[in-house]
């Protein structure tokens, strides 16, 4: 397996507070990598450095390198907009655009980037909704507002919206933390399916979830990467004492 995202000496700051310290990690192509760790350990900050969303926070800074398919996304000639089209993101709480219909929510990334061919957009909307297993539930009401759906459906709509711009990598920031167990199961199934075609990075608080969906797992603590390896190894034979303490539930 090829390395898709190679991070070297990554530091991230909020003003003077360092949120990430010297992160070095290589994430494999078309695999699901879980990021686990207690609250405030920098998991979300880490994935937000991969689509250059972190720098939008006032006074936020990043140093170090993030290579995407071999080229550094933080080099000065790179347009963050191009990076964000390659790296999709699904957020903690479902956040469909309330002013837009289901159809337009999925089409937003295309329409607002200047694609106008209606047939082409129609195709992509249908494909994306089918991929996110929402098509059958919404195909007769594509013109209703996206917020009229249930929480789980909204989250799958957000996944469809991310898929529509044809990313290579999809970041999930605790995608199930606001959902009920049945919706959670559906999303997990979906992630399992998506990793055949996409590189998945998923932040989760739920260790069973990490164990179920991911191939590799990284354990973060206080802004540092403590351990990274095969999910199976991390959960059955962790090398680091702190990892062991966390996964056995002694803190966090």
């Amino acid at each position: 397996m090829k390395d898709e995202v190679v991070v070297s000496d990554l530091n991230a700051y909020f003003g003077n507070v360092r949120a990430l310290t010297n992160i070095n990690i290589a994430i494999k192509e078309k695999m699901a990598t879980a990021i686990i760790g207690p609250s405030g350990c920098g998991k979300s900050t880490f994935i937000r450095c991969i689509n250059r969303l972190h720098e939008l926070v006032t006074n936020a800074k990043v140093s170090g390198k993030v290579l995407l398919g071999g080229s550094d996304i933080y080099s000065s000639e790179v347009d963050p907009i191009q990076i964000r089209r390659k790296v999709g993101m699904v957020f903690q709480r479902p956040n469909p655009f309330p002013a837009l219909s289901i159809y337009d929510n999925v089409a937003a990334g295309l329409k607002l980037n200047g694609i106008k061919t209606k047939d082409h957009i129609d195709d992509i909307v249908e494909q994306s909704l089918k991929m996110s297993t929402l098509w059958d539930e919404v195909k007769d009401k594509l013109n209703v507002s996206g917020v009229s759906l249930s929480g789980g459906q909204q989250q799958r709509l957000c996944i469809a919206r991310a898929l529509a711009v044809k990313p290579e990598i999809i970041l999930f920031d605790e995608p199930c933390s606001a959902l009920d167990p049945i919706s959670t199961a559906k999303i997990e199934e979906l992630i399992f399916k998506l990793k055949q075609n996409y590189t998945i990075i998923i932040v989760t608080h739920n260790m069973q979830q990490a164990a179920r969906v991911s191939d590799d797992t990284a354990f973060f603590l206080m802004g540092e990467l403590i351990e990274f390896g095969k999910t199976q190894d991390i959960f059955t034979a962790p090398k680091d004492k702190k990892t062991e303490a966390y996964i056995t539930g002694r803190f966090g």
Partner: protein
Amino acid sequence: MTTYKKRKIIDKTMCSIAFLCAFLTLVPLISIFGYVISKGITSINLDFFIHLPRPVGEPGGGMSNAIAGSFILIGLSCLWAVPVGILGGVFLSEFGNNKIGATVRFIVDVLNGVPSIVIGIFAYTLFVLPMKSFSAISGAFALGVIMIPTIMRTSEEMLRMVPGTLREAALALGISQFRTTISIVLKTALPGVVTGILLAVARIAGETAPLLFTAFGNRFWHQNLNQPIAALPLQIFAYAISPFDDWHRQAWAGAFVLIVMVFLISLISRFALRRKI
């Protein structure tokens, strides 16, 4: 037990006082409404809407030119005040968390408190003096200056209510900051922004002072925008201070039309606000 009783009595008293105060504020509003309606409705007829004012001494006639003039003035004011107000609101909410934003906010709030007649003098020196003529344009400028603070601050408030996660979601799709602001954030806040515009329109619809030496008034159909133009509040003012009974009657009719206009605008804005995000 006694303290409980005492507390209950105080509670009842305070509650009654609060109710009384709330009721008192309704008294002037309802009496104005009642008086204008009773006086106005008897004076209003079809002629009022379709005829020009008649010369002094001749009975009948209407205020068709003033009604049209008011609409033209409101339209012209919106034409420049709405874009300026909304874009200013976008600046304050999206890029205004700094010293510049705070300064702009302060100045806009001060502008909101400037008496409208002062704004009229300002428009007079800026437009009427150089153009050597009273004009619709100078009137629309004065009214627009009055509208901007309301539109700007309500737009800002409404845009701020759009959750940050929506901005992030749009940016994460590779949508540019500009399209995110216009097509996602502003679109989400649109019902509230429209309410702000309608409130500003309701406010200027009845403004008289700034029009006295800008739009000036006109007894005929206006010729073009560089010329004086009639407006409902001006016509009411002119007729109300005249010594003729028939003109007083028409002033009441004008007041009635004006109050119904403002009432309808407020009603529409309420309706627009209800289907907010």
